């Protein structure tokens, strides 16, 4: 028997992200049968996705609770996920400075409620964002929560007021 035709022993183990492979050439008895199992395992990471509502219109002169849409989210597991909310203006609607509003930005603070959880005034950074833990009752199933805001004082100077709310969700 030539070297090339000689049987080889091979051990391959793959598991939990660790691969060890080795091939060792060793002499084997001629004509002896052999088999080896190859164990393959892997893990699908937990993930969640979130979808913001479309842009929402509010009344800057109203002190009433105003709905600002529904956030939907889904995760690929059952358990809990952390949903965070923050905003570009740190929980304020702002009308930029212009000659017609007196040359100074006009702002009004608002508080936010998400699905019944009072989050107060949003911050302007993810690191300091308001958080609410969501119970994920079923994997890969859409869930949603309604968001609303309430101004602490009504706008009194004409103009366009706006803010952008950011949301993310982490398993």
């Amino acid at each position, binding site marked *: 028997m030539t070297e090339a035709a000689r049987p080889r022993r091979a051990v391959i183990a793959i598991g939990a992200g*660790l691969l060890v*492979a080795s091939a060792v050439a060793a002499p084997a008895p001629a004509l002896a049968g052999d088999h080896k199992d190859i164990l393959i395992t892997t893990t699908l990471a937990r993930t969640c996705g979130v979808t*913001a509502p479309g842009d929402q219109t509010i009344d800057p002169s109203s002190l009433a609770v105003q709905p600002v849409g529904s956030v939907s989210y889904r995760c690929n597991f059952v358990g809990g996920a952390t949903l965070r909310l923050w905003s570009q203006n740190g929980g304020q609607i702002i009308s930029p400075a212009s000659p017609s509003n007196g040359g100074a930005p006009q702002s009004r603070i608002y508080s936010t409620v998400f699905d019944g959880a009072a989050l107060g005034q949003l911050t302007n950074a993810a690191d300091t964002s308001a958080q609410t833990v969501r119970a994920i009752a079923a994997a890969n199933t859409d869930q949603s929560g309604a968001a609303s805001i309430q101004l602490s004082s009504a706008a009194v100077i004409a103009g366009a007021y706006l803010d952008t709310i950011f949301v993310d969700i982490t398993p």
Partner: protein
Amino acid sequence: MRNALALGALLALAAGATASAADSWQISGALARACQISFDCADGDQCRSLTLDDRVTVQNTATVTWQCNYAIEAATMDFSSENQGLLVNPDDDLGLPYLATYTGGQNSGFAGRSLVTHVITNPTPDTPNVDVSGSIQLMLQARTQPLFAGRYSDRITVTITPEAP
């Protein structure tokens, strides 16, 4: 062997990573331009106490105060008379003409105009939500015919409307 190593690297990535997702939406609303106006009859009688014999003195009537919730850009002020610029006595067919003046600032005023037709001014508020006041003054005009006993009156209406941005 190269294929097996690539698979191993992929599995390691999947096992160690956690994913998050983010999105955003905008909330916005506009506060429309608005102006408001009020009048005050000082001493409670100034609006109806003209001296009919005085045809040379400008006589104060009401103080008219207005404001808008914006600045710099214009509004339209409209002054009109129910009797087209005449004080009218039901017993006097001729009426008594007068010239009107409004002393308000920021381009809202005018001087010595008959209200036979509307007088239009275009105030430009300096500052949002700050009152601007002026007096409606009348100067009664001479007429050759004698007046009739009784009450001469007119109703002056002032409206202010913001101009569209």
